[in-house]
């Protein structure tokens, strides 16, 4: 049984912070099919398009019929743990400081044998389900879990190395004035975060939901204005070393395309809050997060971007807004590469129109802020990199994968 995680003690300020190390991150190009699946929490393996053989490790020719058509497809993740070993001596520094480390050989029901990391509650001879995860290097690995959930299984040390579980972690939510920010604070508190800092610009100005927000357990409001570099830097100066998960909830939703806008005022505001706000956060908090990627139970774990799914494909009805979101998405890709040396994940949460005042005229289905918050917590607990929340976001993603040009025409009509 997994030993429940103990609340980490206050850090001794004189103690050296352990520098982040990464497991070996080299992969063949083909193996990144696993990375793509792991990023979204799917279990996909190559399945031969000609003979249906399930293939692992990733190959460029089917070992049964030599076909080169080996697409990654959802696969049955069940199997049996044939043999396990506890590694006590490793040639790699990352694993050396995490010894002992268990791995095992799993015979997948679908065919191939897979060498996998083992969850602590799984024993030799037992049935198992496999999941693809991203390790600290950002690359896909296979983790073998017990066939059924076990108590406190998320606290398993090998599992927690792969996730960004908010339990006992310290969170910063950058904008608590919005319904999404408040829902996020509630969800993170419920998920066991040690403390949830919630940024409020101009704290003297009252806002709807304020009383409720302040009553949430372990929530503490802090002054933070993403449009003000000084404010962001001051907040980081005081709190950055205590932040393990940063969730940027800043939003600025205004309808309209590019041509109708008179001048740059609104567009500038959009960029000020979204793109420049993200840039200010990244510059102020990023270096500290990256340096604290291996800082014990409450190591820095994730930088979360809430992104409109129209960052992926512009919706001209909200055309200028979509463009600003696209800028944030592109920045997030850069952040991923920049934070990876610390083992800190960048989670992009894509969503469609929300049940908020700024999407008043948009037809349903819309996403409730609480659903967006729950999905974000779940994605952190699973260690995902990309998550799509709600029917519209899923739909856009699916249509984009089939025919990006068709989607462009459809969104523009």
């Amino acid at each position, binding site marked *: 049984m997994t030993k429940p995680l103990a609340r980490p003690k206050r850090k001794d300020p004189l103690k050296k912070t352990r520098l982040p190390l990464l497991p070996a991150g080299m992969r063949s190009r083909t193996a990144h099919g696993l990375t793509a699946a792991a990023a979204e929490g799917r279990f996909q393996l190559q399945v031969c398009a000609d003979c249906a053989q399930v293939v692992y490790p990733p190959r460029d020719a089917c070992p049964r019929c030599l076909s080169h058509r080996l697409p990654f497809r959802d696969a049955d993740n069940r199997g049996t743990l044939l043999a396990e070993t506890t590694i006590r001596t490793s*040639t790699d520094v990352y694993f050396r400081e995490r010894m002992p480390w268990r791995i095992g*050989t799993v015979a997948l029901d679908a065919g191939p044998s897979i060498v996998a990391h083992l969850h602590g509650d799984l024993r*030799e001879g037992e049935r198992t389900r496999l999941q693809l995860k991203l390790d600290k290097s950002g690359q896909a690995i296979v983790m073998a879990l017990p066939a059924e959930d076990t108590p406190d299984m998320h606290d398993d040390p090998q599992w927690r190395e792969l996730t960004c579980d908010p339990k006992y972690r310290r969170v910063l939510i950058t904008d608590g004035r919005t319904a999404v920010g408040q829902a996020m604070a509630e969800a993170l508190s419920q998920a066991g975060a040690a403390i949830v800092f919630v940024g409020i610009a101009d704290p003297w100005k009252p806002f709807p939901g304020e009383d409720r927000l302040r009553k949430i357990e372990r929530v503490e409001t802090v002054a933070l204005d993403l449009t003000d570099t000084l404010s962001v830097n001051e907040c980081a100066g005081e709190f950055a070393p205590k932040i393990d998960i940063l969730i940027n909830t800043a939003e600025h939703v205004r309808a309209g395309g590019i041509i109708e806008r008179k001048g740059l005022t609104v567009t500038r505001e959009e960029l000020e809050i979204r793109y420049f706000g993200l840039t200010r956060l990244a510059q102020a908090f990023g270096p500290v997060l990256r340096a604290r990627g291996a800082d014990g139970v409450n190591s820095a774990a994730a930088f979360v971007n809430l992104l409109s799914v129209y960052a992926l494909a512009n919706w001209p009805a909200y055309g200028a807004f979509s463009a600003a979101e696209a800028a944030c998405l592109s920045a997030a890709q850069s952040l991923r590469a920049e934070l990876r040396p610390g083992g800190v994940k960048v989670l992009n949460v894509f969503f469609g129109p929300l049940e908020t005042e700024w999407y008043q005229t948009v037809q349903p289905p819309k996403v409730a802020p609480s659903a967006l918050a729950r999905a974000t917590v779940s994605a952190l607990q699973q260690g995902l990199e990309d998550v799509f929340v709600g029917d519209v976001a899923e739909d856009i993603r699916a249509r984009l994968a089939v025919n990006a040009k068709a989607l462009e025409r459809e969104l523009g009509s």
Partner: protein
Amino acid sequence: MAADRPRSERMPYDGVVVAAPVTIPYRRYSTNTAHWWVGRAVREVIGAAGLTSADIDGLSLASFTVGPDTAIGLTQHLGLSPRWLDHVPLGGASGVVALRRAARAVQCGDAEFVVCVAGDTNQVDSFRRMLSTFSRFAQDAVYPYGSGGPNASFALITRNYMKRYGATREDFGRICVAQRDNALKFPHALMKKPLTLDEYLGARAISDPIHLFDCVMPCAGAEAFLVCRDDVARSLGLPAARLLATIERHNAFPEDPIQYRGGWALDIAEFYAMAGVTAANVDFVQTYDDYPVICMMQIEDLGFCGKGEGAQFVRANTLTADGSFPHNTSGGQLSVGQAGAAGGFLGLVEAVRQLTGAPLGAAVPDAAIGLVSGFGMITYDRGLASGAALLAGGRA
């Protein structure tokens, strides 16, 4: 495929012999390059045979650390002008494979004197660097899983074998302890201290159930031998061992979910038939001993006992050079050290010494027929390459 298609038949190795067995004494770490080790071994072979570089018209190289060079670069480096050249990147199977290719070249007249050489250096940290890039499958699907190297991979194979056949750590210990006994008499062995079964059992765990004395020690070194015709060897006054039969197989039994047998099991009937002997005629066996479980698999798959009876077999026999089943008579890699690809030559070179009456350490009494087995290249979850050779001394 037509069932009545003509089948090819193995030709015997008429008159092919192995001579001039050479070991360049191993070192734990070396500041020298692989080229240095290979060069020394080639020089010793040529010297032992009373030849000159100009006589050498065939060269076969096995090395993990000679990069960026391959065999061709070594011809210019060593000043050789062979008309037959081979590079055998097969690790623990490279000795047997180099021999069987060289034997056909000599038999058919493509070359007269083939020097087969394996050499590797071992610099601090070179082992780790090799592991992480050993194969594409290792890079994608093994090394990121704890980076335990072959210790972890063979731990899984060992664990499964123990569970499947009831073998115990004591059984593997018998193999390791007997090899240490042999090694104490072998001057080049890096392990100089006796090993008891209690010490074996009490050693620290490396990757359960693999413990310290189940593991080879990576080191630097080189091994080499000469392949030529028997009449040529006789004219030079060179003691030599005759090649009776060989087998080679790669990626055997891919459907086994975890490895419990090797390619030998597929080809064993042909192997003994070609040599005209049976397992009962074999006077000593040099198995490839990267881990004792693999020795046990070879003992089974090469027909010395039934599948799964390896543990019983090692309990019932003494495995020292003077025992009922002389095995890895120089101490094997477990006690001599694993000098990279030279580990795939060590048993073969030792066999030729035993069969030509020139052992450097413990002698197998009345050794007439020896079996050498090779195994190697765990690119994902199992060793892919396997091979074996039967050799006969002057009296057989």
